[in-house]
């Protein structure tokens, strides 16, 4: 029998994280993410995991990264202002190549903004919030079920590529409760970090093989046996700092390419009624649901329109959008901000399509009618 649960987005992220093997959480209270720590405070002790509420957002990201260093699957959660505070720590996890999941339940901004309202204004923050050259993986679930499945995927990608992965949820998904049919756990793939095969005295935390640019990292069980050094400084294969230009450049490139060369696995998206469409909408996250309603209505009115919905939003699905540019004369981008992903879309389209937008950063969700209106304008 299908496992039907009535849950909201935050609850689903928690249960998925636990199923994925997350056994360490550190966080600081912030709306609209607070149900995540509240639930984990109860659930973690039940599964033999660790829950910590720390003194601030910075302590939380550092603790989560350090738990990953110590072999644990680890997570923190926050919202826009807290994610801003965590950015230096996210960069540290990128540099140290620590698997880590960061949930960003987006709200409006800048600054304190609209704490209880939905937004997608952290799209660029997720990619470029920390300083320095780096690559990040970010997923934007669009449905409650995806809050569950994409959280599991986020952990899997974090472990497989030894990298932080950001989940861009928002206040709408976080607080939307509905019946969700969860996939049976045994049908879900759970990935664990690759373990060193060498003896502890020969282990080097950034030594790669000819076939895999992601070095192994001791898990919770192996950590005590493997002594190694990690630093936020640019490092060589041993984990110690280096200023050798050739080594630094090779390492910086490897850290980016370990993700960019694996987009076949990392990329995920939905094509919705694009087959016969003449106009394409590009939308992600909870806002894609408004686009879906608008498309259904437009089709009822005889307008042939479809949607491209990135689920993995970073790395940006450049190739996919470039192909949309070859096929569609009109493309509408809709997002709950004043224009962030649209810049990436524009770059990928290279002027091939006419670009339109439905943008809003008012704390209120974009209504299907707003998108429908734009579809009608464009189709006329």
């Amino acid at each position: 029998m299908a496992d039907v649960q009535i849950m909201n987005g935050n609850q689903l992220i928690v249960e998925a994280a636990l199923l994925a093997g997350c056994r360490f959480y550190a966080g600081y209270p912030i709306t609209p993410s607070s149900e995540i720590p509240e639930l984990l405070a109860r659930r973690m002790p039940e599964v033999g995991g660790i829950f910590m509420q720390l003194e601030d957002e910075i302590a939380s990201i550092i603790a989560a990264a350090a738990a990953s260093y110590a072999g644990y699957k680890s997570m923190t959660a926050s919202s826009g202002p807290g994610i801003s505070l965590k950015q230096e720590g996210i960069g540290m996890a990128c540099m140290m190549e620590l698997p880590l999941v960061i949930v960003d339940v987006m709200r409006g901004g800048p600054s304190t903004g609209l704490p209880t309202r939905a937004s997608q204004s952290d799209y660029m923050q997720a990619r470029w919030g920390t300083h320095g050259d780096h690559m990040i993986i970010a997923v934007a679930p669009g449905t409650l079920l995806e809050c569950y499945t994409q959280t599991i995927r986020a952990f899997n990608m974090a472990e497989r590529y030894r990298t932080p992965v950001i989940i861009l949820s928002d206040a709408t998904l976080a607080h939307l409760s509905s019946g969700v049919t969860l996939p049976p756990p045994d049908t879900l793939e759970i990935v664990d970090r690759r373990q060193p095969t060498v003896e502890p005295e020969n282990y080097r935390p950034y030594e790669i093989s000819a076939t895999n640019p992601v070095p192994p990292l001791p898990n919770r069980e192996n950590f005590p046996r493997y002594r190694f050094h990690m630093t936020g400084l640019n490092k060589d294969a041993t984990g110690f700092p280096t200023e050798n230009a050739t080594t630094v450049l090779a390492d910086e490139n490897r850290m980016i390419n370990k993700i960019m060369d694996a987009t076949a696995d990392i990329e995920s998206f939905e094509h919705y009624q694009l087959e016969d469409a003449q106009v394409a909408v590009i939308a992600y996250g909870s806002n894609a649901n408004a686009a879906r309603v608008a498309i259904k209505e437009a089709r009822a009115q005889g307008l042939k329109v479809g949607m491209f919905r990135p689920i993995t939003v970073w790395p940006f699905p450049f190739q996919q959008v470039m192909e949309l540019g070859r096929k569609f004369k009109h493309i509408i981008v809709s997002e709950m901000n004043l224009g962030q992903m649209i810049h990436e879309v524009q770059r990928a389209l290279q002027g091939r399509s006419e670009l339109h937008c439905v943008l809003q950063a008012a704390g209120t969700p974009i209504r299907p009618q707003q998108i429908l209106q734009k579809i009608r304008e464009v189709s006329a």
Partner: protein
Amino acid sequence: MSVDYPRYLRNDKLPLYWCPGCGNGIVLKALIGAIDELHWEKNDIVMVSGIGCAARGSGYVDFHTLHTLHGRAVPAATAIKMCHPSMHVIVFSGDGDMLAIGGNHFIHACRRNIDITMVVVNNWIYGMTGGQYSPTTPPGSKASTMPQGNIDSNFDVVELARGAGATFVARGSVADPISLKNYLRKGLEHKGISVIDALSTCHTQWGGRNQLGDPVQLVEHIRNITVNRSNAGALSPEELQGKMITGIFHQDLEKKEYAQAYYELSRPVEQTAVV
């Protein structure tokens, strides 16, 4: 019995990055001496540091080592202790790192009473970045960002730690490395948070600006301004003026240690396999 120091060091990383005559090496040596007396296994020790001269200490010791961001050693150490409660977790970092940018983590770790040892290598200055004044720079002394003499008040690390709830608080100095080692050992053994204010020297950035540029002279200066607790009682308030008291100030064995408290409330419904 003499300590086999190379056993605890990553000897291929020597010589030390620190200036010849720096006090940090004395503090690190005292720490290794204390660990040697405890017969701890290297696999059981984690050293975490932030950013700065002292923080580079983590690179030289053959333990599990994590060189984090500026000010962030303490939350990293906290997490590692929670993940592996049987391991010994040490923070080794400077006064600017732990008391300015990391000051919030410092006081909360004291309050939380988690079983980590925080060694504040306190040389009253930002050495690595060029001699800017820190939260422990003595008022009146010169720094690159206080060329006229420091007008900012300084923290008393002992009072700060005790006020924040630390259950073991001591102060030693590089002028008396044997006592420093003993305080470190007692701090390492203490079950709960331990804070050791390790007065160290930076002749390059603090000494030179304050007419104490010779390393030996600077150690002598520390010897002159420190008084052990056992002798302080005999001195008049006038004689104690401007002195820093060394010794073990506080040990509370009653307050519950945080990781133990957590693991006691954590009663897994069914023991989950290690993932």
